[in-house]
């Protein structure tokens, strides 16, 4: 029985040793290692396979594209692998030249050349790889046909390398914002020599991203990866700009329980959280005022209407439902995250203001409903509102249910489903109303508009409109940004008039950030370039 006293002694000793130490945050600050909540275990680190925000957070640290984000300004491109870039004809930006820096290297010292980019583009577009995000490259001539298997000849895709440090890209239409698109990880280079060493490039199971195999070209390289525990990246000494990188590393923690994450922050275990649980926002604002952030984020929350089913075929009914949603009340009492009421589908950002003018107006809604033949909601069939099984989704659905009952006298039933069933039900269009959201991939209205084309994979509303698609086509041919935005604005107006979706709010991101973190400014896409961050204890 000597085991028990020994155990007690050990635990006591551990307690005493641990008590005298600094908090994890203070220690990490001294070591210049950022501790970051990242919500879940990533699906992988292969930029051509993954598609989520949390994978993006890690991949942006490991890899660098042609250009990089500005630390505090949206829509500005700073040099990345490319030293300089531009269209051959600025009036018609259809052919672009990127001049790659000669000193660019992979973390094993192998030079990074234009060939790596060509290899990457070919790999992500190879149908057998099954990349979910390859449509981000469809702007290149021939990319879509190659990806859809219409041709096996990659030379039909108009990207080329006139020499080993020059990359030429020919687009199917003029795109003045191409550098913005190349910030997305689908355009990043992947190491040809490493991928080929570990298997076939088009093999999804190619183990090149394993910790012992991976080489990257960004400010950091992979240090350790323990499933569901952490991923740590460390400074890459061979990165071209490494002397200007202040951090020694970043530790990403897959904390799926947001209450746990927030409590870890309150107790100095994290520098940055992924989010704040809605129930803890008020507490955080009160007790951690200068560390609680609420920032505009490039996303919209809305409800899809199945426009080919039941009463929702009538645009008047869709509008009536839309303008009886008291958006501000939902923000104040349900989501509690200080979001903005959504007047349209595209969130406003520099240069573009949504033409949408959706406002709470129950009087007009009653009239519209009456015109449609359901005065006071009489005779209105019971419709179903599809949403996910999360508690927050349920709360929102119940609020909407109450609003429509109160202002229109109509009944809806809430149908909660677990995530995959919810998506499948929506995709098979077996719903009346369905909750949903969209996060923009790049800084342009198009990322919120081109999904609504006929039979588009993310449309799911049965809605389509020829004039809408004509306008998108017109915008595609227009080079000047102002004219383009004006055309896209008309397209959005038309879309909103038809109301296949009922906008609710534009996203904000609520998170906690420790005041040791320097150089983290609000960015609408939330892609903070880690190379400009620093950790300084006060």
């Amino acid at each position, binding site marked *: 029985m000597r085991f028990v006293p020994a155990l007690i002694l050990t635990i006591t000793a551990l307690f005493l040793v641990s008590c005298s130490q600094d908090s994890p945050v203070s220690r990490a600050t001294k070591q210049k290692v950022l501790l970051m909540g990242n919500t879940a275990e990533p699906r992988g680190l292969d930029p051509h396979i993954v598609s989520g925000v949390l994978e993006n957070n890690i991949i942006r640290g490991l890899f660098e594209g042609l250009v990089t984000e500005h630390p505090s300004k949206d829509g500005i491109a700073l040099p990345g692998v490319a030293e300089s870039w531009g269209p051959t004809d600025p009036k018609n930006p259809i052919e672009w030249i990127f001049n790659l820096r000669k000193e660019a290297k992979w973390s094993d010292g192998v030079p990074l050349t234009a060939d790596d980019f060509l290899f990457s583009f070919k790999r992500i577009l190879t149908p057998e790889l099954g990349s979910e995000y390859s449509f981000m490259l469809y702007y290149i001539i021939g990319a879509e046909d190659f990806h859809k298997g219409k041709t096996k000849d990659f030379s039909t895709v108009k990207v080329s390398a006139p020499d080993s440090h020059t990359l030429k890209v020919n687009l199917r239409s003029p795109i003045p914002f191409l550098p913005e698109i190349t910030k997305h990880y689908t355009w990043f280079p992947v190491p040809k020599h490493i991928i080929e060493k570990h298997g076939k490039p088009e093999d999804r199971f190619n183990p090149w991203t394993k910790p012992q195999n991976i080489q990257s070209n960004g400010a950091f390289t992979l240090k350790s990866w323990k499933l569901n525990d952490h991923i740590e990246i460390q400074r890459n000494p061979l990165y071209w700009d490494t002397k200007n990188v202040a951090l020694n590393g970043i530790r990403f923690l897959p904390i799926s329980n947001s209450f746990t994450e927030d409590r870890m922050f309150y107790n100095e*275990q994290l520098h940055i959280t992924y989010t704040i649980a809605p129930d803890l926002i008020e507490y955080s604002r009160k007790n951690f005022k200068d560390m609680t952030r609420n920032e505009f984020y490039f996303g919209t929350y809305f409800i899809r209407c199945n426009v080919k089913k039941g009463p929702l075929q009538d645009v008047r009914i869709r509008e009536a439902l839309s303008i009886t949603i008291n958006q501000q009340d939902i923000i104040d009492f349900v989501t509690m995250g200080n979001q903005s009421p959504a007047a349209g589908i595209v969130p406003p950002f520099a240069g573009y203001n949504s033409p949408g003018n959706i406002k709470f107006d129950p009087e007009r809604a009653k009239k519209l409903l009456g015109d449609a033949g359901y005065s006071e909601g009489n005779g209105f069939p019971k419709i179903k509102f599809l949403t996910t099984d999360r508690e927050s989704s349920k709360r929102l659905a119940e609020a909407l249910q109450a609003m429509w009952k109160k202002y229109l006298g109509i009944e809806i039933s809430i149908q909660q489903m677990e995530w995959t069933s919810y998506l499948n039900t929506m995709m098979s269009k077996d719903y009346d109303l369905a909750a949903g959201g969209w996060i923009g991939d790049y800084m342009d209205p198009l990322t919120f508009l081109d999904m609504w084309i006929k039979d588009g994979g993310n449309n799911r509303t049965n809605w389509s409109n020829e004039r809408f698609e004509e306008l998108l086509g017109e915008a595609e041919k227009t080079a000047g940004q102002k004219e383009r935005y004006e055309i896209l604005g008309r397209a959005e107006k038309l879309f909103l008039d038809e109301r296949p979706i009922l906008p609710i709010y534009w996203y904000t991101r609520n998170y906690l950030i420790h005041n040791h973190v320097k150089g983290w400014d609000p960015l609408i896409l939330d892609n903070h370039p880690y190379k400009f961050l620093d950790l300084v204890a006060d």
Partner: protein
Amino acid sequence: MLKYILQRLLQGLLVMAALYTIVFFLVGWMPGDPFSSNEKNISPEVRENMKKAWGLDKPLWQQYLIYPKNLITEGSLGVSTEKNRPVWDIILQSFPASLILGVSALFIAVGIGVPIGILSATKKNTAIDYGGMAIAMIGICIPSFIIGPVLQLTLAAKIPALKIAGWGHPLDIILPSITLGLGTAAYLARLTRGSMLEILNQDYIRTAKAKGLKTFSVVIKHALRGGLLPSVAFIGPAFAALISGSFIVETIFQVPGMGQHFVNAAIKRDPFVLRGVVLFYGLLIVFMNLAADLIAAALNPRIRLEKT
């Protein structure tokens, strides 16, 4: 003895085959497929290519045969459709944390549950008995998703040595194992009390007392051996449950264990991980049950292994 073990192992094999069949078809018939659990839609071409990569394009009955074949010939449980890594890799990386957590939880369960049960039985219908059973009742009734956060807010937030969540330091084991073990402790307390009461009324205990033995040695030397039998039978499968992980405790305390794979694989329709972890759990249950029976036989000479 050896014959008995072999016989039980053979039965175990049958159990595993039945388990595999049930799990395989339940997973196969779930609505949706692993490639439809992402918000962004993927094109039909991409979906077909992915199905082909995982062999999910074949008819279900073929998949049903291929899986055990790969398991026997290559030792492969398949590759996760969600995490893109071998299922073995996932199990081997997450099982150690679950094992450590489960063993500590079992220590806590036995260390708290059995003494309370014995004490309650020997002090039947006294304040100690009622108090002990009240604690046990509370332990059974309060779910771990309440106990966990309460421990975080009361202990971890106040004591600098304890972290809210995380896994890496030896002290990180304390709070999750208490959370995980408390329910089992409560159940054990009730079970031990019940069987101890029965034993304490037996003739041989009365004889021992009549010989003038002290209550302590009567309880420990004579009664406990028989009194613990139901608890031992219970501990076997309970131990398998503890070491195969708990979704709730793991997510509250950020433990990189196996429990979360059961839930996440079901949500994400990841057929390979789901089958892999269920079969692994099944295997643990089979072995723990066998171990529990062997221990019971060692404790109780009246159990003859050969005849069961």
